[in-house]
């Protein structure tokens, strides 16, 4: 729940993982052990016995991209609601609280409908609001607030959290290694028996989250507008958290239907990394999750973004100093061009010797920061994004022109042998660094299993990157870094003196 605020960094974070995930076939392929249960649940285990701890990632392959007009924001909202307990946890008596849950749902739904009606009587709205409050107050007597959080805490858990992206939802926690069964017990219960309590109160929490991460945050707003401009048709255009009116109208019935269909073994991959035994993990996970109903596979998104036919520009006016995002449509993994973009990302934007840093930060001193990353997801064609922070008194226009010159150069001159060597070394060493962290590795494995369909994407990655040539880079840069394929989002200051 907390990490979901980090959706934007997540985009970059996922990308980081992508870069850092090259694996010489041997080390990773040998370390990962795999088991698929009859109901489709996939378990990946890496034993690391350095410390008596383990990290657990449960990743469900459903994210905001799987929403439609009527339920936008639901994947993220469900991530919050699935912390509210089950029929067993988070309640003093589920059977006794049920009638209240139903009454709350009825009242809340009627209230939402009235609020949508411009002719609704204010008095009636006020009456229902009061009734909802009374019901919520009564219901509170049955709630054991955040019981799972408390059980985990007492057992020494750290990093108990979840996050939702465009592509997937992950539930994560790290525990002392003797608590494997505790984790299985709590999480299988959540998968089978989650009860969506405190629905309307939590909806208000999500509205506060939106105000915090988007409406009061210039970077959040700019990123949101960039996506909404670059994509016309594909659901990648919508914010993970939903637009404000989406959030205000999410209903318990929709939430339950969505959850019961998709948050199930067939769409789920679990990674356990740390001081645990593979055979024991298979046995414990099998005992708790093995008999759960398989669920409905998440259908492919039908919408296809049409080819962009000309530059798009959007401005966001905010009480902050100017910033700039430039984005180009590109294919996603496992397309060959996507590997080339991984190389381009390092050549252009990663490190002090990268081209954009050298040219725009050090030589021309037009910007103080430059970053490049892929966004907003990886299950469907996505964007290559360049983020720039202009340095006063230089204008956004100056910065843009300097950027385009560098992109143009990439399509006309081959990158040097040294640049390619630097890129390959960086990717090779980053994969080693990623093996140092239980949670980092668990994240990577479930991420690629979900978006690439197989974690072994990582095993092949190194050799695919090694085969990218200077000519490939030139050709891809020429094909995608065009005016027609470009979206420019500009943050324009207001209310501030220079």
């Amino acid at each position: 729940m907390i990490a979901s605020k980090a959706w934007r960094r997540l985009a970059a974070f996922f990308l980081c993982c992508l870069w850092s995930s090259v694996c010489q076939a041997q080390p990773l392929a040998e370390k990962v052990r795999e088991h698929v249960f009859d109901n489709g649940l996939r378990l990946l285990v890496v034993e690391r016995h350095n410390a008596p701890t383990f990290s657990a990632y449960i990743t469900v392959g459903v994210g905001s991209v799987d929403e439609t007009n009527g339920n936008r924001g639901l994947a993220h909202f469900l991530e919050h609601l699935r912390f509210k307990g089950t029929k067993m946890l988070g309640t003093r008596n589920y059977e006794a609280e049920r009638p209240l849950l139903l009454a709350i749902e009825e009242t809340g739904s009627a209230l939402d409908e009235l609020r949508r009606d411009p002719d609704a009587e204010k008095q009636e709205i006020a009456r229902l609001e009061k009734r909802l409050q009374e019901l919520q107050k009564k219901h509170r007597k049955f709630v054991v607030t955040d019981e799972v959080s408390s059980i985990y805490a007492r057992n020494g858990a750290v990093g108990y959290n979840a996050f939702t992206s465009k592509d997937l939802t992950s539930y994560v926690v790290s525990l002392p290694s003797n608590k494997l069964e505790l984790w299985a017990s709590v999480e299988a219960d959540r998968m089978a028996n989650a009860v969506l309590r405190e629905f309307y109160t939590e909806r208000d929490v999500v509205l506060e989250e939106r105000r915090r991460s988007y409406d009061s945050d210039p970077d959040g707003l700019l990123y949101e507008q960039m996506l909404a401009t670059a994509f016309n048709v594909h659901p990648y255009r919508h914010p993970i958290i939903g637009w404000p009116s989406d959030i205000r109208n999410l209903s318990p019935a929709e939430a339950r239907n969505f959850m019961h269909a998709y948050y199930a073994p067939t769409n789920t991959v679990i990674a356990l990394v740390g001081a645990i035994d593979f055979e024991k993990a298979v046995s414990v996970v099998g005992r708790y999750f093995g008999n759960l109903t398989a669920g409905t596979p998440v259908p492919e998104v039908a919408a296809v973004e049409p080819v962009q036919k000309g530059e798009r520009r959007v401005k966001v006016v905010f009480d902050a100093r100017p910033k700039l995002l430039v984005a180009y449509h590109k294919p996603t993994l496992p397309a060959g061009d996507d590997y080339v973009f991984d190389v381009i990302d390092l050549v252009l934007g990663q490190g002090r010797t990268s081209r954009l840093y050298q040219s725009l930060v050090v030589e021309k001193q037009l910007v103080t920061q430059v970053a490049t990353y892929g966004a907003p997801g990886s299950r469907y064609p996505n964007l290559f994004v360049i983020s720039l922070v202009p340095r006063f008194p230089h204008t956004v226009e100056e910065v843009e022109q300097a950027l385009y010159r560098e992109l143009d150069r990439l399509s006309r001159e081959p990158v040097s042998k040294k640049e390619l060597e630097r890129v390959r070394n960086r990717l090779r060493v980053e994969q080693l660094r990623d093996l140092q962290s239980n949670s980092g590795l668990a994240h990577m494995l479930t991420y690629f299993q979900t978006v690439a369909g197989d974690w072994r994407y990582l095993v092949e990655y190194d050799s695919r990157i090694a085969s990218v040539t200077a000519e490939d880079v030139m050709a891809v840069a020429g094909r995608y870094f065009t005016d027609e394929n470009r979206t420019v989002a500009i943050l324009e200051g207001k209310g501030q003196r220079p």
Partner: protein
Amino acid sequence: MKNFGIAILLGLAVLCGCSAAYRSEHPEDLEFTPLAFELPQVETFQLANGVRVFFREDHELPLVSVTTMLNAGKIDEPENRSGLAELHATAMRSAGAGDMTADEIDAYLEMVAADLSVASDAYATTMSLSLQSADVEQGLQILGDMMRRPRFDAQRVELARRRMLENIRRQNDRPAVVARRAFLSALYRNHSLGRLPTLDSVGTITLEDLRAFHKRFFKPDNLWVAVSGDIDRAALEGYLNDALGDWSGRFDRPKDSETLPPPAPPALWLAYKDVPQTTLLMGERGIDKNDPDLYALRVLDFILGGGSFNSRLMQNIRTRRGLAYSVYSYFQVGRRLPGVFIAGAETKNSSVSEVTRLMRQEMQTLMQTPVTQEELKTAKESLVNSFVFAFEDTHEVVTRVMRLAFYGYPDEYLSRYRQRLAAVTAGDVLAVARRHLHPEAQTLIMVGNPEQPDDIADALGLPLKTVDLEGFSSEGESN
């Protein structure tokens, strides 16, 4: 709690026939084998010139990590040179060293995929190096050159300065950043911990200032080094002696007689931003590391707002009322001088008054009524049982041991940590709440467009003052 859980479980099994063969045993009824855990050992040794080294071998991967610390922080900045420690750290890293230009250093490090950074905080300058074990010798040479022979090439220093100035120009863009600065400024006032870099102060720092700062602090007996990874002790000692062995000089340690000026009188500070949500901070001066109340305060903080979903602030403001996404408290333990106690939240502009009242009320309750045994148990068990995660990462183990020694923590701090937490009683929590929380005398910061700020100030019994965002000198203060 346990028996209750079983009762529910049976009830459910009868009433809904429990789908499939799913075993819904209450997680609290599970039994666990005890966790075998010993504090990992860290080797320590000293070079002849006084450099202190902390070391742990770990051959899992062909990588080595190095972290160094020196006393050289914000607290050491002269009065009109705010930002000196930060600019110095950036310039050390990015303006050449020894025989190498900045570009040559970067080209080498990036070709071998090594990461090297230099940063400064209130008390220390910290360098971090991560590289492949084959490159340790060369990497330590560069690190040594940066400490012993920094070039401070003028052009690169200027670049670093310009980037820092741009960051200062942008410091009002994000409400959270504005709030933190206003808060520190009110609590530490003209002391170096409260003086924030300005366009003027950073603009006037000269190359000579950088060199003088460097010369004063960069001495072998002021250097602490933590190393972990794929290297043995003999090789490490050899490389360290090559890079640092013939470095001489004595660090003239300043006397520890420093005191803080009194904080600004309590007030409600408003920084206006045209945004739909107000960022709220409230707090006061806290404790330093030698305060015997440290352990009871950790428990208190967990229960108040440090324990995430298990804390009162979270449960009463977020979970039960939906008034905030993030709400928390934090007792910062000052390494030398007292740190700060902060409670914070963000809420829509129309509910600032309510959230302010609730936050203050939670503090008052802790001063009036002992915490419940259930809360005490959750807080203590969480803090004690998660202790093992402090030792998950080998390099974090070594740097932690170094950091504790660097700041002069007692030797048995780590080994007795769990025992001391476990001994905290509800009476202790009540006593430290009364001793360390002063809700009526706290500084409050609001950044945003809160409704009726005058009424909020009246309800709190505090004067309403305005944060001057342009100069960022607070009204009535002469900094």
